[in-house]
């Protein structure tokens, strides 16, 4: 296993579109082990995409199981992931291993359903919400050359906690 170098902005290699994985072999699984070791080696990242280590394959890892009170599927390796359904939206703050020392507010779908393959090529179908769904959307963006900085909304664009306002019966935004 090895810790791989992480590409950082403005490296143009982060902007390329990754290719689907077609061969599910030991070499793929060895790379996934390296990718996971790389994720764990830096700041507390809940996910990583192959693009971030200059491998143009549609592979992401997400694991939000370390966060309290968060519905999750544990350690997830998603190969050739596709979101087939999404619902709702919410804004929250994100950062990225490839964008050191910057965070910003990003709008993501609240709930998603997705298909993918596991490291042996077996089909997966998952439904997820909230923090885990956000992490998957963030990582999947990398596979299409998109970074969260492309999606940041104004710091003054305030979309937080709208649901709470509605529940509380307090004045709603117009």
């Amino acid at each position, binding site marked *: 296993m090895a810790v791989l170098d992480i590409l950082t902005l403005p490296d143009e290699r982060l902007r390329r579109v990754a290719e689907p994985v077609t061969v599910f072999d030991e070499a793929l699984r060895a790379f996934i082990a390296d990718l996971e070791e790389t994720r764990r080696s830096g700041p507390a990242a*809940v996910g990583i995409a192959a693009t971030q280590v200059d491998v143009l394959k549609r592979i992401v890892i*997400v694991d939000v199981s370390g966060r309290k009170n968060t519905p999750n599927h544990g350690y997830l390796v998603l190969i050739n992931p596709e979101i087939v359904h999404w619902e709702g939206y919410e804004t929250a703050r994100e*950062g*990225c291993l490839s964008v050191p*020392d910057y965070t910003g507010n990003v709008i993501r779908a609240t709930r998603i359903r997705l298909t993918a393959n596991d490291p042996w090529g077996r089909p997966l179908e998952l439904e997820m919400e909230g923090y885990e769904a956000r*992490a998957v959307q963030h*990582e999947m963006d990398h596979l299409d050359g998109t970074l969260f900085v492309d999606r940041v909304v104004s710091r003054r664009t305030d979309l937080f906690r709208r649901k709470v306002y509605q529940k509380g019966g307090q004045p709603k935004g117009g």
Partner: protein
Amino acid sequence: MLTLVGADRPGIVAGVTQAIFAAGGSLGEASMIRLGGNFTIMLMAAVEGGEARLRDALAPVAADMDLRLHIDPVAGGLHQHLIPNVQVRVTGADRAGIVAEITGALAGVGFNILELDSDVAGDPRRPVYLMHIQGYSDQPIEALEAAVAPIRASGIAVDIAPVETLIG
């Protein structure tokens, strides 16, 4: 740190930044927003020759666009951003003292404000004050809630929530 303020009109940002660029300067972090008909700029800039050179470079555009200019020498360079972990939203019937009370209560428990913006909205006869703060606290949310409880009891809505940053 440059501070520029003047009656809002198109072209202020372009005029200011072109003057700095033409003087060989470069820009860092900035906050620019329209406040009550004024356009306000707070801008980090670095230029060879420092304050005097910057003042000379900006004098024509400041005169042309009727901007008031203030310059403070500050330490520059890249730094580690502080990431907010708490947001506070405040709404209530406008009256004097809301900001002082809220920020006083928060400061009392060590809350560090990183961003604050506020607005007055609503009907002119019944104006509403809205404020949005993001900051850093090493205290639990409950401690902040307790600190603002007396203000809430006076009819001001105060919503305190954690801000979590997903690193992916």
